[in-house]
């Protein structure tokens, strides 16, 4: 029996206990705030904590429960959101000093509001690379976030605060954003589940600065059951697709699972990558391979699109407030501002072809299995990592295997592969648009087999 007040309590344990009245939402939130006060000074995952409003919301949920009302499927579940999202009452910084002087947000971003509507309670904002441009959450202004599994190592990024908060048990679920892999990458390095949902499945309002065509919100969790319930709560009412919580236990019957190969997915892989791929191939008895269409060109297109679109929102700041940028991102933004339109247009045209080619693959298979990250979490301050047998700059290199999927609109989930005594590493599952339930079914089987697990660090 899991104690709903403990760090390893999952969102479903907490909601079940709060809904049954066996524990109060107020007690759950007090316990989470206490964990944050003890753990966060070491990890630096939270950049702002909301106590009073969270406790008021908890008391309101307890009052609803006591009156016999329905407090929601995620009643009393503490969560937090990347500082990319508006959270009413605090300033949305997006990890940048440029926004630090802005007034507090007046209302919640759409996805934060959706979790509040389901009964969950936001406890604060989480650290990130400035404006999401980075893969390590080493932030000059707000400090580096540390990996809960190895404090001298990065959590990945740009949603590194999100991954660290969930992996450490400060909260059971949290929200990030994924442009080129900013949910799936840190989820892999911190050993939690991380979902990039289908394009168009969740609300985009209240993300600052406004996202380009690649960036979408995505949740992290420590179990498939929690991920399914959070995704169900986040999904827009008119988005297609079945309830993940209802379908996640349907097993593998009828699902065709294949390992993606081709280009960089052929390797060579570092030892840890090869090991987790082998574990999954063996556990799921995968005998089929399919050629993922042009992953290296897809990565190139995604990077050019992200560079051009990301910079478009920052031109004024680059002209007039350059000194306020994080030196880690300033020079990348300046270069992005100079990208010729022809490169961007070529990238978007390739993106259209690539999306159609990937959708064609899903006429023949249901799930693609591919690596998530090229290595385990590097040490803080590392400049390069080895990918495909070549040393590459750490920021783009950590996202090497997740970037090609970003322009497709397909849902993709990082699943943490359990290896006792080893640093975390995940595997990436990809499905056709609106088929998140298929991802959950496979991940749920892996979890039941003990292949996938996200123990609190």
């Amino acid at each position, binding site marked *: 029996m899991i104690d709903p007040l403990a760090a390893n309590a999952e969102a479903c344990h907490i909601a079940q206990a709060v809904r049954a009245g066996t524990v109060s939402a107020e007690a759950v939130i007090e316990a989470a705030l206490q964990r944050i006060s003890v753990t966060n000074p070491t990890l630096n995952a939270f950049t702002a904590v909301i106590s009073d409003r969270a406790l008021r919301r908890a008391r309101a949920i307890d009052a609803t429960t006591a009156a016999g009302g329905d407090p929601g499927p995620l009643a009393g579940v503490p969560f937090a959101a990347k500082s990319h999202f508006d959270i009413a009452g605090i300033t949305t910084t997006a990890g940048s000093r440029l926004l630090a002087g802005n007034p507090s947000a007046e209302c919640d971003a759409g996805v934060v509001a959706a979790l509040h509507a389901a009964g969950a309670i936001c406890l604060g904002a989480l650290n990130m690379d400035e404006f999401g441009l980075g893969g390590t959450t080493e932030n000059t202004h707000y400090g580096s976030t540390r990996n809960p599994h190895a404090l001298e190592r990065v959590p990945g990024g740009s949603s590194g605060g999100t991954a660290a908060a969930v992996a450490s048990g400060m909260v059971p679920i949290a929200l990030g954003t994924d442009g080129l892999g900013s949910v799936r990458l840190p989820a892999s390095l911190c050993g939690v589940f991380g979902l990039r949902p289908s394009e168009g499945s969740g609300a985009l309002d209240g993300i600052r600065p406004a996202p380009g065509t690649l960036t979408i919100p995505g949740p992290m969790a420590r179990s498939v059951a929690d991920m399914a319930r959070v995704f169900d709560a986040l999904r827009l009412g008119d988005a297609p697709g079945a309830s993940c919580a209802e379908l996640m236990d349907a097993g593998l019957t009828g699902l065709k699972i294949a390992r993606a190969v081709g280009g960089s997915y052929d390797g060579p892989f570092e030892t840890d990558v090869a090991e987790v791929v082998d574990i999954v191939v063996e556990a799921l008895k995968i005998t089929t391979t399919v*050629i993922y*269409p*042009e992953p*290296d*060109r897809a990565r*190139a*297109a995604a*990077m*050019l699109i992200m*560079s051009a679109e990301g910079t478009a929102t920052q*031109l004024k700041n*680059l*002209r007039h407030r*350059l000194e306020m940028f994080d*030196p880690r991102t*300033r*020079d*990348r933004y*300046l*270069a*992005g*501002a*100079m*990208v010729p339109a022809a*490169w961007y247009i*070529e*990238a978007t045209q*390739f993106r259209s*072809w690539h999306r159609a*080619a990937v959708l064609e693959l899903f006429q023949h298979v249901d799930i693609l299995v591919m690596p998530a990250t090229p290595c385990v979490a590097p040490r803080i301050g590392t400049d390069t990592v080895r990918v495909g047998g070549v040393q590459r*700059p750490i920021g783009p290199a950590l996202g090497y295997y997740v970037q090609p999927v970003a322009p497709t609109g397909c849902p993709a989930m990082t699943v943490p592969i359990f290896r006792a005594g080893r640093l975390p590493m995940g595997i990436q599952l990809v499905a056709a648009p609106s088929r998140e339930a298929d991802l959950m079914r496979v991940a749920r089987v892996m979890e039941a087999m003990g292949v996938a697990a996200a123990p609190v660090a």
Partner: protein
Amino acid sequence: MTEDRWNVAEYVHAAAVLHGLAVPAEGYNAVVANLRGLHETSRLLEDWREAVGATERKSDKR
């Protein structure tokens, strides 16, 4: 646009003037390096239409 026909450092100087950007002296080499990286990335897409035909044929054989 091939590297020998395209002097990235000169382009950065001209583009900065065009966009009203003041590239700091200490960041100039990094901006040039970043743009050179993006240029190399863009070159992967220069012949994608021809390459896609080749990939589809390879896929059919497999």
